[in-house]
């Protein structure tokens, strides 16, 4: 009986290792290839050497990446844009969800349904009208001591952030999570004299950690991976995010080592973020029954 159990757990372990390998090998290949010259990448391709840091290993590709594109600037831009979108996204969407979940407002079901309905409209269909719209918005600029007002948000940081703060899926996720928090806690807080914002701040949000972690990841990923939108609204190189940079490598001679080095640079932050929030992310999925 004991032997059978051991065999069973060994089998389970083997299957887990197999799945882990399938998921990890592309990333491993990318990281290892980023350290090799092109000739060696293709030479190692047909053997296990493709996944091993052996042969002519160096950081030359990384040095070349910073030569070929302003990678540091792109990274700083993407980190800034993603971080601000996430923080403001958590604040705005949780407030909205709180109102829909806790406040007794006439028509809130209709509002919630309307918010959810926006999920079925793909961004691509909205992109062009949105470009036109953001180009009509007023823009305030400090010029010395005078405040100048011009038209159009194109070619700015905020055009890459503000349209993506409010997010129907994040509102839905928070709403579902808030529904699982007993309303008796609100009532107790009310008896103690707390207002709506205090209940939100001191009762509900502290209990919504897993939902916040999930929203953070689900907001961060599209912000980090954003490609179409910055392509349409950003013209200055100094404002571009990392994803646009990958195209720089596909003009003229493609150096796959450099492509892998750049891909590694832009993948690692996402992997680190996921590992950091992994536990909360899984908890949130388990408790809200939502798949990301």
């Amino acid at each position, binding site marked *: 009986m004991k032997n059978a159990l051991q065999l069973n757990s060994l089998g389970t372990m083997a299957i887990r290792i197999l799945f882990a390998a399938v998921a990890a090998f592309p990333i491993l290949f990318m990281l290892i290839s980023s350290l090799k010259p092109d000739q060696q990448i293709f030479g190692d391709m047909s053997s296990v050497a493709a996944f091993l840091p052996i042969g002519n290993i160096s950081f030359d590709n990384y040095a070349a990446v910073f030569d070929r594109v302003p990678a540091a600037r792109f990274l700083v831009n993407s980190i800034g844009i993603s971080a601000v979108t996430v923080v403001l996204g958590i604040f705005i969407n949780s407030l909205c969800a709180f109102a829909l979940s806790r406040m007794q407002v006439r028509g809130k079901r209709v509002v919630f349904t309307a918010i959810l309905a926006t999920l079925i409209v793909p961004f691509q269909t909205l992109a062009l009208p949105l470009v036109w719209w953001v*180009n009509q918005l007023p823009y305030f600029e400090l010029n010395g001591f005078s405040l100048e007002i011009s038209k159009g948000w194109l070619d700015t940081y905020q055009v890459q952030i503000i349209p993506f703060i409010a997010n129907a899926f994040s509102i839905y996720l928070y709403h579902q999570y808030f529904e699982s928090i007993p309303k008796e806690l609100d009532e107790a807080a009310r008896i103690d004299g707390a207002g709506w914002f205090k209940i939100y701040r001191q009762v509900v949000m502290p209990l919504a950690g897993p939902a916040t972690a999930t929203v953070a990841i689900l907001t961060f990923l599209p912000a980090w991976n954003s490609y179409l939108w910055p*392509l349409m609204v950003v013209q200055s190189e100094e404002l571009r995010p990392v994803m646009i940079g990958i195209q720089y490598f596909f*003009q*003229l001679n493609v150096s796959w080592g450099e492509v892998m080095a750049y891909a590694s640079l832009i993948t690692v932050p996402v992997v680190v973020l996921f590992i950091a929030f992994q536990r909360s992310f899984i908890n949130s999925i388990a408790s809200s029954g939502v798949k990301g």
Partner: protein
Amino acid sequence: MNKRFTRILATSVAAAALLGTMGACSKGSSSASSESSKEITMWTHNAGNPAELKAIQDIVDSYNKSSSAKAQIKVQAFPQESYNDSVVSAAASGNLPCIVDIDGPNVPNWAWAKYLTPLNLSTDLSKNLPSTVAKWEDQTYAVGYYDVALAMMARASDLKAAGVRVATIEQPWTKDEFQDALTKLKALGKWDYPLDMGTAGTGEWLPYGYSPFLQSFGGDLINRDGFQSADGALNGDKAIEWAKWFHGLADQGFMATKSGKDSTQDFLNNKSAVLYTGSWAADKAKAAFGDDLVVMPTVDLGTGPKIGGASWQWGVTSGCKNADAAMDYLSFSLKPENLAAVATATGTIPATDDAAALIPAYAKGGANRVFMDFSRNYAVMRPETPAYPFIATEYGKAVQDILAGADPKTALDKAVKAIDANIKSNGGYKS
């Protein structure tokens, strides 16, 4: 918990403040919408091509420093793959810069869409390679510094070993000779496929690379009389003959249905005997093979060898507030020394003989002069119609289907049906 949440909220406020700060000082320094009449913006597709970008920037710097400059030109570079999308979205939001570069065959579409205004330059363009001047409805909308030319490259030693003559501009290979050459080269047993036609290529390569063969057979992408239908041109007998011939090259084992990702590198590594490529590969091949390299015209499949004409060109947008300065800059940039500098940096064919005379390889008797001859003698402009981008996409799909073994007539009929429907739905693309 309370403290934790307060921290989160404080971070939100800090983020909002940061956002404000970023917003206050981060507007692109020279976005097209904010360009003044004294500073005009120029967009180029060369962000991923440092050599060409530097050559362009040098011309701009030289103009900006000149006492006669009518405005300061500011360059903004985009990666080529996403350049057209950036232009189209800028046009949709009314945010186009004054000067743009454009892939030649797209000029009529951009002119029809009113992105471009006709050029009014002080430079005489009559001596330019015809393929470097883009016209639509009798007006010139764009002009290029250079062109590229398609050719066949091989090693003379391989041809000699197989008993195949070197094709020349006076006597290109005929269809039968080409078949014979490939048969003999394959018989040498040195290569899996003796011919590399770059069949892994995608996008514009498909019409640029393969429609000249269709035209050499006597077919075309569209009936050029009025550009209103592709029926008969793209699915007539000649076109079907072309499709069968093209698929036959793969069927007989002369070429792969999907070549390697880098055909030039494969040729340099002796993985193919004959490479169908462009003038851009010449310097690399010459460095590898020296005098053993032979550059030959493409095959005469009935109506003479044909190659695609037009590369990247420059135009002025219709919304430009200082079109006079933009035209002035373009006229300045077309000086022979500027054309020669760009052509040297990019390894391309300079647009004029005066510029060619400044580059030893393209001067009369120079090693690359042959490409200029190919361009003058064989270049066929891709159809000068606003429908071209759609035609190119449909033709590209048909090429891939034919290579994959689809029935030629069915594949080409499908393309014709789609093209004709597109032209009809756009009112014939009338101006």
